[in-house]
């Protein structure tokens, strides 16, 4: 059931006038357009959607890292003229469903100010309890700090891990306990640990000399 | 020297040997006792090894697999393989454990089981220790297992054994009571505490083919079933294997043991199983009495071991089927159902005995026992029974 997104947008604007909500078109054939919500009143919008429009199932919360904002606007095409964000940001998408009215995915997007110091989004755990673990996972893998989350800890990585693995600019440390298998990507790392293998035109040359047959 | 006296053979041989070598009297006596004891321990240690194989084979067959068949001809050498494995495994003692108690616990589990085995009459000629207070000795010795399980749980120092010990003690204490009360019925009817006399009183046949075992009397049937359920709980066997609930508290009080101490725990459990089912057979299934008249040529201890195998097979069958009971349900079942019904068998046995064991006694005792069971079923149906539910289907 394609959700009538315009009526919902109108409903929200009329109920919460000052909410900076805007429509974002999805260029792909799936037709799942989304609503960009301003971070500060995300919780009111969710509360309104749950109470009046009966969206009671928050099925999925996805974190996305947009180092170049232009790409973000390519995927979620804004209506009319909108100044693209200055520098990269982190984005969180919420997929809402209604179990009674059996209405399809209503996609909400919330964006952080920037990718470093204050990547903060208010946590919707007070409205939808299902977001608790998913927000912890986004905090763990992306670094978005959900203010108001009851127990914001790393959920998948171990607590002493400092970096955020799912970011586009994440570089895996070389001293991972790696598995030395004799094939090129790992041989590259093996070079520092076992200096025996040498390289040829950028690719690891197999140490055997004569044609192997 | 018929087949009947076969089990006594080693003891007589040694005594004769020593006598014509002119050994002093007390030496012959001690040697005789030693050999008699070693036959009992030998038979039941062999039984333990065989039972560990038979258990795995029967469980396997209930689950459509074959069970151990690689070591030896049909898996016969599997117990030997397990024994070697247990002996060669490293014996780890946790740092926080209290060394002495940690070592003492497995020993104190095996000792009472072997002592208890010494008192049970296996055949007309084969009673290792014909004690006049046999039954009392059995229960007195059986009381030591709780202390040893506590020592195992406490001495291991870690959390799961603590939980296991708590469960084990509460279960053993609360099932010891109905066990003894059912045995009391038999003592009251046969008038003695000595096990060989109890078996003798169960000789003979009613109406030609029904053996005069205690099981075939009204109170005996009820007491026998209750005794059977309590012996499952005493031996920590499946629906009541909470102390060693492997899906919840890993291995209960045995978690921190490895190597031969762990094997000792198993030996203790299985010998305890032999002892408790041996006692059950002696009290209710007529010990070594033959089931049908005219089978006198068969040596009596064959009957005892045949009955022992059937009882133990039923333990294995139950182990293959039932899930585990929760600790509070276990306690409620013991105190609210087992003990009242066990207490009920005492007056029934008394009336049955003093009303001359004839038709009159049957007429009186059967309703006396039947009515409470009907009441329990009604209560069970009305309030307690977990209901089977109906389910709606949406289009």
């Amino acid at each position, binding site marked *: 059931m394609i959700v009538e997104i315009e009526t919902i947008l109108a409903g929200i604007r009329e109920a919460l006038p000052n909410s900076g909500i805007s429509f974002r078109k999805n260029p*792909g054939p799936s037709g799942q357009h989304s609503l960009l919500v301003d971070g500060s009143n995300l919780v009111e919008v969710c509360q309104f959607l749950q109470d009046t429009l009966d969206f009671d*199932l928050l099925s999925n919360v996805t974190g996305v890292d947009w180092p170049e904002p232009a790409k973000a606007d390519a995927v979620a095409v804004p209506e009319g003229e909108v100044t693209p964000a200055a520098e990269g940001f982190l984005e969180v998408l919420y997929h809402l469903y209604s179990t009674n009215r059996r209405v399809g995915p209503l996609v909400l997007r919330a964006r952080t100010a920037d990718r470093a110091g204050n990547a903060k989004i208010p946590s919707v755990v007070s409205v939808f309890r299902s977001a608790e673990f998913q927000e912890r996972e986004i905090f763990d893998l992306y670094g978005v700090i959900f203010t108001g989350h009851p127990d914001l800890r790393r959920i998948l990585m171990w607590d002493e891990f400092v970096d955020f693995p799912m970011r586009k600019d994440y570089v895996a440390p070389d001293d991972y306990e790696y598995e030395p298998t004799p094939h090129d990507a790992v041989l590259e790392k093996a070079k520092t640990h076992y200096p025996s293998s040498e390289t040829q035109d950028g690719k690891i040359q197999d140490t055997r000399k004569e044609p192997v047959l | 020297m018929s087949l009947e006296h076969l089990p006594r053979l080693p003891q007589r041989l040694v005594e004769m040997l020593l006598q014509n070598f002119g050994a002093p009297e007390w030496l012959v006596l001690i040697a005789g006792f030693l050999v008699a004891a070693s036959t009992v321990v030998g038979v039941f240690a062999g039984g333990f090894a065989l039972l560990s194989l038979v258990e795995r084979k029967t469980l396997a067959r209930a689950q459509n697999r074959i069970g151990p068949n690689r070591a030896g001809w049909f898996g016969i050498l599997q117990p030997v393989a397990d024994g070697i494995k247990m002996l060669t495994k490293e014996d780890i003692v946790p740092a926080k454990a209290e060394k002495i108690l940690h070592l003492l616990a497995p020993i104190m589990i095996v000792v009472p089981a072997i002592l208890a085995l010494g008192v049970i009459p296996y055949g007309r000629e084969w009673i290792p220790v014909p004690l006049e207070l046999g039954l009392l000795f059995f229960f007195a010795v059986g009381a030591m297992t709780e202390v040893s399980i506590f020592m195992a749980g406490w001495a291991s120092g870690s959390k799961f054994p603590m939980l296991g010990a708590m469960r084990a003690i509460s279960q053993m204490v609360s099932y010891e009571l109905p066990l003894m009360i059912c045995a009391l019925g038999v003592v009251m009817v046969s008038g003695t505490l000595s096990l060989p006399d109890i078996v003798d009183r169960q000789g003979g046949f009613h109406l030609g083919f029904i053996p005069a075992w205690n099981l075939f009397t009204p109170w005996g049937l009820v007491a026998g079933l209750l005794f059977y359920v309590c012996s499952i709980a005493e031996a920590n066997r499946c629906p009541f294997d909470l102390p060693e609930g492997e899906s919840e508290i890993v291995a209960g009080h045995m978690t921190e043991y490895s190597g031969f101490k762990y094997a000792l725990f198993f030996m203790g459990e299985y010998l305890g199983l032999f002892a408790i089912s041996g006692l059950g057979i002696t009290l209710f299934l007529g010990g070594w009495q033959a089931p049908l008249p005219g089978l006198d040529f068969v040596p009596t201890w064959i009957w005892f071991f045949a009955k022992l195998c059937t009882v133990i097979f039923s333990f294995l069958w139950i182990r293959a089927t039932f899930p585990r009971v929760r600790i509070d349900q276990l306690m409620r079942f013991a105190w609210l159902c087992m003990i009242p019904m066990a207490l009920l068998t005492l007056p029934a046995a008394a009336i049955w005995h003093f009303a001359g064991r004839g038709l009159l006694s049957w007429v009186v005792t059967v309703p006396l026992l039947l009515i409470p069971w009907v009441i329990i079923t009604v209560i069970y149906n009305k309030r307690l029974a977990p209901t089977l539910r109906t*389910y709606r289907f949406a*289009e």
Partner: protein
Amino acid sequence: MISDSSMLYSTPALETGDDEDQLLRVSLGPQHPSTHGVFRMNVVLDGETVVSLKPVFGYLHRNHEKIAENATYLSSMPYTDRLDYICPLSNNWAYAHAVEKLAGIEVPERAEYMRVILAELTRLINHTAFAGFILGDMGAWGSALMYAFREREKILDLFEDLTGARMMANFMRFGGCRNDLPAGWAMKCGKLVDDYGPFLDEMEKFLVGNEILLARTQDVGQLPKDILINGGITGPMLRAAGVNYDIRKVEPYGIYERFDFRIPLGEIGDCYDRIMIRFLEMRESLKILRQALDQLPEGDYIHPKAKIRNFKPPVGEAYGRIEGPKGELGFHLISDGTTNPYRYRVRPPSFINLTLLEDMCLGLDLADVVIILGSIDIVLGEVDR
């Protein structure tokens, strides 16, 4: 970098001080016989009753989503087998469904029927294995599990004949299936479906009336409907509480609206209802399989113009979801027009169904915690991704 900002704090995990207030802190897992994989729970016990329970994840985390971002759409397909390794084919279908929604690809008739047959066979495998595991957690080691695995082997043989591997099927492609049904496969599948009914009757005789099972599972781990929906619980656990929400009926994907089958609903939603709902769902799956096998058409098993190599979906995003045996399995894909997905997100039902684990276990025994975890039916490959 963000790592040094003071804002980033990690609240101290459950302090493991020992017994000052007579509470026993026990860590159930990750090495534990009944946590269905490497899953750990920090349980604080007062005697035997649970005072607090904090789940700990991450032991099987291999960052499946990062691997997918650095690989093409097709090479993520074999990795979806490893998400919920008990039902690989329904994971494949979920991923293929999401990509088809992203790129707007239609699927020929025969492929749709093959997908429904394989998904329902996977549901049978999952629910049968569930019955075996839940009895294993309760202590009847092995018997129910071995009967369940005996039937599961027959279905896995069918998968091996069709896809080449018993479990790691890697069978769906964007626009259909990898190869066609070998000769005689449909007939063998029909025979299996026919004699699955008697096996279910035997398992029900073994399970349904068993007093110990009734006593241990009734009124255990029960939560009201609205808390379940708010907690994001989907699948059999939600329907056991009476919420009529099955994605095959709510948002019929593939050709599910052609089959007539019904959705079993419970009333109370405790562990017993969850077991029974799964049994009734298996009977409905058998009905679907029967109808699908009868109407299986001829035709090509993959869309003729389906692209296997350098497949570039148009820019955009899509969230496709199917009714997996464990709940709503969704894939959220964002494509920026290149051969690699920009963002590849899996909505794992096992992971989100664990949100309310603590609420269900408070005040109950340690033995109940094990059963409640079993009734949620988690697989760690999907929880940790």
